[in-house]
């Protein structure tokens, strides 16, 4: 594992309504890892993503990037697909490049490549409402991939999907990750999802987002259906589950 892509130093975040989401959080995001932030709802894990993305400013502390250029090229997948309802799948995936001023003709190969990666190449002309929930999420992932970002931030992207679709998308995300080698920061409250996807799980407490446990997972493990059945997977889930209980209990 190589060095830190970015570091959060003593981050605090207090919202205008007085709620303190984070207090004194220190966390490195290492290059090439899939880092999962696991925690009960309201533990500030989405806030961490927003701070990294630059969509929110920390009340104290700093987000330090090893290479400041990397912060200009992020991919983000939100909780909802957040597609433009009036634009086709192609236009939605083209949006980041369009906003960078790239012509449609020039961008088309990259947009089609991103759509092909998520299995939506045949649906380029479809409107979002013609897609299933899983396909909308795929479109949002294609949009995040189209700029070939070094870091992809995912905020509970599969939380609203059914179990079967969620497993399928988890498999696809692992394949994508192996292909692209991008760093991924993934927020979830699902233990199984975190155990399957991550090379590192950080369990956050509801009390000011304190980190209660860090679980390292061997990145060389093959993430396939056998992995889901393995003893190693169960052990990770047990540890994460224990930590999550502790994280939830602290607030009570």
């Amino acid at each position, binding site marked *: 594992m190589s060095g830190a892509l970015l570091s959060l130093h003593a981050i605090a975040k207090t919202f205008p309504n007085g709620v303190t989401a984070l207090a004194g959080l220190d966390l490195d995001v290492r290059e090439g890892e899939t880092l999962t932030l696991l925690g009960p709802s309201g533990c500030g894990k989405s806030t961490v993503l927003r701070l990294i993305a630059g*969509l929110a400013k920390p009340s104290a502390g700093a987000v330090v990037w090893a290479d400041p250029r990397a912060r200009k090229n992020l991919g983000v997948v939100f909780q909802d697909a*957040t597609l*433009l309802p*009036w634009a086709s799948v192609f236009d939605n995936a083209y*949006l980041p490049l369009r*906003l960078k001023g790239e012509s449609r003709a020039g961008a088309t190969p990259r947009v089609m490549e991103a759509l092909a990666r998520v299995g939506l190449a045949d649906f380029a002309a479809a409107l979002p*409402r013609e897609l299933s929930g899983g396909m909308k999420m795929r479109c949002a992932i294609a949009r995040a991939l189209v700029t070939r970002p070094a870091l992809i931030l995912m905020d509970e992207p599969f939380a609203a999907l059914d179990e079967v679709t969620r497993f399928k998308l988890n498999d696809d995300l692992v394949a994508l990750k192996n292909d692209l080698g991008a760093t991924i920061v993934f927020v979830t409250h699902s233990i199984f999802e975190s155990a399957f996807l991550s090379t590192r799980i950080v369990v956050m407490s509801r009390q000011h987002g304190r980190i209660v446990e860090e679980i390292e997972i061997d990145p060389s493990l093959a993430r396939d259906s056998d992995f889901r059945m393995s003893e190693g997977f169960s052990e990770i889930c047990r540890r994460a589950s224990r930590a999550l209980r502790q994280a939830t209990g602290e607030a009570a």
Partner: protein
Amino acid sequence: MTKLRDIAIPLAVFAAALGFWEWVVAWKAIPPYVLPAPSAILAKLVEDRALLFSSLIATLGVTLKALLIATVCGVALALLLAQSKWLERALLPFAIILQVTPIIAIAPLLLVYMQPENAVLVCAFLVAFFPILSNTALGLASVDHALRDLFDLYHASAWQKLIYLRLPAALPQFLTGLRIGGGLSLIGAIVAELAAGASGQGTGLAYRIVEAGFRLDIPRMFAALALISAAGLAIYGALAALSHVLLRGWHESARERGE
């Protein structure tokens, strides 16, 4: 099948109502200067067609011209207000005062200052303007937060946000405003014509009603009224069709029920 039934049922009920009206007039032998039968109104419409239809064209022309100006001004001002809260606070009271003052009370005043044709145009404009302004402004302001974040994330310029996000997002509300404005601009034109007609001037359909009233030509009053209703229906229908075409496929309001 559903389509046919959706059209056939209201048409049948409407025809039955007209038939009942015809029958009551014949049965009670009501004289035409009290209540003309639908057949008599239709006959009058055919007989006075040159006069009535030229009036219809005058009224429709003013209405559409006013609607067009109201659309341009309403959207332009909505865009201006969307640029700054300060401007919005400064200008909105004027728009609201115009909106809450009944247009019928403004019409006579306008006639003092302007030629009747211009007064009618301004009246129709004033009532159509506010719903277009307020709906468009609302649409521009109520863009999904997550989509706004997305555009911020990609460092979109204010201009890009406007073109790719806010304008398309405001389209449904704008079209709602346009539909309301279309109906109101006809009302505004009619109100101003009534006010102008009382002073013996005017060319529009409402003036025909006033004039026919002076002459106790009740069938012609009804004929002109029928044309006004038809004009209102045509404007509403055209604007509803426009919304349907523009929003087809993506906005909830344009989706077929049960789809």
